[in-house]
């Protein structure tokens, strides 16, 4: 058994920007339309639109051969382009950019497996399912699961339930 007596269980207050986490995940197309958005810290609705537009404009303005990591205001943005669709992830400063970069690809691979060759339309029409997949992978702003079959397990179970 662990001796917990000498442990100080206080959690020092920390500014939100200092936490190591994913702040949001966005999927946007080249026209700047949001196809999916998920925030892991509360942002007012009115500010979301402005933030999305700003971040997206920033990412779209960059050329293909430019770096995929961008410093934006007080956080970093990691983005990846798949055909006309951009996946943009906002992270705090101390998060590892490359691991997020790889996570994005993992996410797309999972989508690809579930929808068998995923397209922008798949994501639009099955928004709730994409959300389930994303929730299986990222929770609380942290990566929880990266194994493809385990990520898809709940979803396939749900699908079976709906069919029956």
């Amino acid at each position, binding site marked *: 058994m662990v001796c917990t007596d000498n442990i100080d269980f206080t959690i020092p207050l920390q500014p939100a920007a200092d936490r190591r986490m994913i702040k949001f995940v966005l999927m946007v197309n080249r026209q700047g339309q949001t196809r999916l958005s998920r925030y892991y810290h509360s942002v007012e609705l009115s500010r979301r639109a402005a933030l999305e537009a700003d971040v997206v404009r920033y990412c779209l303005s960059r050329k293909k051969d430019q770096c995929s990591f961008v410093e934006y205001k007080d956080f970093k943005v990691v983005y990846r382009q798949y055909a006309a669709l951009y996946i943009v992830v906002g992270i705090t400063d101390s998060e590892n950019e490359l*691991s997020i970069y790889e996570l994005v690809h993992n996410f797309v691979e999972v989508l690809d497996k579930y929808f068998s060759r995923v397209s922008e339309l798949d994501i639009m029409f099955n928004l709730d399912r994409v959300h389930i997949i994303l929730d299986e992978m990222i929770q609380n702003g942290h990566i929880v699961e990266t194994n493809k079959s385990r990520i898809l397990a709940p979803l396939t179970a749900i699908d079976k339930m709906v069919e029956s």
Partner: protein
Amino acid sequence: MALKIVKGSIDRMFDKNLQDLVRGIRNHKEDEAKYISTCIDEIKQELKQDNIAVKANAVCKLTYLQMLGYDVSWAAFNIVEVMSSSKFTYKRIGYLAASQCFHENTDVIMLTTNQIRKDLSSPNQYDTGVALTGLSCFVTPDLARDLANDIMTLMSHTKPYIRKKAVLIMYKVFLKYPESLRPAFPRLKEKLEDPDPGVQSAAVNVICELARRNPKNYLSLAPLFFKLMTSSTNNWVLIKIIKLFGALTPLEPRLGKKLIEPLTNLIHSTSAMSLLYECVNTVIAGQYSCSVGSVCLRISVVKYLGLLAMSKILKTHPKSVQSHKDLILQCLDDKDESIRLRALDLLYGMVSKKNLMEIVKKLMIHVDKAEGTTYRDELLTKIIDICSQSNYQYITNFEWYISILVELTRLEGTRHGHLIASQMLDVAIRVKAIRAFAVAQMATLLDNAHLLTGNMQRNGICEVLYAAAWICGEFSEHLENPVQTLEAMLRPKVATLPGHIQAVYVQNAAKLFATILKNQEGNTDSTAAQETSQLMIDRLPLFVQSANLEVQERASCILQLVKYIQKLQQKDVEVAEEVSALFAGELNPVAPKAQKKVPVPEGLDLDAWINEPPSESESEDEQPKAIFTKEEPKHSRPRHTEVDEKELARRREARKQEQANNPFYIKASPSSQKVYQETPGVEHIPVVQIDLSVPLKVPGLPMSDQYVKLEEERRQKERAEKKKKEKKKRKEKRSGRGKKHDSGPESEEDITPAHVVDIVTEEMPENALPSDDDDKDPNDPHKVCDIQGNLQDGSQVVVSVIFENKSDSFLKSMEFNVLDSLNSKLQRPEGSGPHDGLTVPFQLPPGVSNEARFVFTVQSIVMPQKLKGTLTFIVKDSSTHEKLDFKLHFTCTSYLITTPCYSDAFAKLLESGDLKSSSVRLEGVNMPFHHLLARICFHHHFSVVERIDSCASMYSRSIQGHHVCLLVKTSGQTVSIDAKCDEPTLLGNVLDEIKQTFSQC
């Protein structure tokens, strides 16, 4: 009843589902807003129905609309309804909508507690899962408190799927309800060893996050993590663990050693770039001396991060980076400018004697190719920075460097003409062996001056001619064809150059003339000499008519001189000797710090006015290119001043006198330095003689004696060191005198310079004091009443207070006391209470003033402060205690330090976007713009970064490192100041103070 159900299902058939909504929005591109508002109306209707399926469908659509930016908070209660549906397909829609729309302040959350608890304990694992996922998005402190126990039970659920989610949500619960951490901790720790990797990873995530906030509590878990690190294959988990160790190692140094092996293994075995990067970052941060070199190569595949990491490595292991020079040079070809700039930064740190020429050669190629002047200018400054760093340490061949500088002058439209010019001057003056070559190059440059000045609009580069003319004149004895150069310098085209360059031309033409006369007088034929005089007489009148005062004055002076010489020549009198005597003597460089090292004699107050300042300060026009106006005194010698002979003789006499007993004087001939080194004995060294009448006796401290003593000690030390150095030098037979690097690799020492180069080290005044604060800005006195706020590092502020006794009686036992505020405290000696006064270390006879310094610690500097204080003293004759109240006013300005800033750094600062802006307008300011700037500089400690016409950018820095940037514009009597600063309060106060300054005038 049955009818109602049937009706419901029929309605459903006509309802839109999510897919229809998406399709509809796509089909109504023109009037999207209108279409959506009709959809929302429909949804509102649907939500009113009893049928849960219809409601779920409506909520699903709302979720989509919410994503598009529509406010759906009005449907919060309906969302809760859908959440509580017993059917999973509807329940998950409800939870999804809740997780997207709810936040801490949504009031319906209170209603959900029991529903969520029910879902958490549901036998269906997906019910539980969806509740946990939703909860992680909208958990409130109340929910956390009420549900903490339920979630904790779930941490040991049989299904790993639930365990994983429960562990992760606990982190959110800890944040909202910290009391839950203690009971949950043992279970959390158990989860680190969970058989399921997903649960393990979740536990690692949570503990890493907790440990980052309070690392020392989690040291006991280090062995467990160590095991995980060697066994886990999940890269994302490994990254987290490595980050955790990064936070733990500073607390437990032994951990660092243990980590080296697994880290190196990972570095060499992993194929994941992200993990590699994390490892390297940790290695760098921990400064473990393991072989990082090999890693850089692999990492630089991801250029930006690689370069970032390399710049970190460079600080600790410069050698391992140097071997990747080629890779970094390749990065210069990259299309991304940020990568190119990073690479440039790296290059600066990695040059050595061996590779300097190669690197600069590559850079020169890039200069030619570069598009856009900004990047090209950046390259140019970098080339010069690289070459001139640490006293030209890496340059083995100065001929090469001069030719590089000459090549750089061919750049079109660069702003850095003055930079190149100052480098040329610096090298030519300090490297004696190079002078002949430099002069030859400069002569060609002068000859082809029309190429440089072709485009007068962008004449930044013509500054180079300033240097060229000066070098040719000063070292004219090296010229091969002086007459031709003289001719080139007196061309009519020269009159189109800026005034300060013309002045140098004229002056140096005279020097050239002297040299030519000397050469020609040896010949039997005197006509050549006379022709030269005639040339001068023919051409100089052009300059006499110049609009520039300086040019005019010099030209007419020299013209008269030449006319006189010509007369003498016609009488066959030998004049060359005397003419060249005008310009005799050699010039030695002076260290920039030299003046500062000279101790200020006691009793001399440099800050005091000698005469009362004129009411309207007549500061001189600020030259945009300050470099020359500033440096001129350094290059000019007494003989430059054209004064009449009598005055000259008088001055010379006075100077000789002064030199004889002035230890501050820097002897002109380099041999004098040697004399000091070789003659032993203190008596040969001039000793500081301070016999200034001291206006005030400071009891107890014979200051001048102290200085002398200190000085003797220092010199003895220095002599010993110099001797040592001499010996070493002879042994190595090295001629470079630049600072030696102990860490310099052996291979570098082996490189012999291409030709013997004598870098004349900068001279220091002989009585320089060893002072610590020598790099700090000289204190900028700021008058606040009679109190001068002076600046010191950190948040300590030294305040100089001038006490002036205006009464007729003798004052003694003065005590200075200030009522501390929360923010500012007077520093008192240890052991004294917080209300004790400080004794002023002197007494004041009537009519005398003296200064005492007090140290204050200041917490925040963003607000101005007023401190109340009292001064108690005893009047000697009456022996009564008297009291004087005063107020100390700490303005925000007094926390600013004049800090020079280059325009490119300034631009970067403004671009960074971290600064908040504010602005102020001043009306009715009736003074020339340069006076205005001078006033801001003087009163508010700013420095001018750049000035263009009636617009100037200014910069200053606070003692706590806040940047303050100003953009001052004037039109008529209105002055607008746009300001930026990282601390808005400070900025506001500084602007207020500036406003006040101008309202007073």
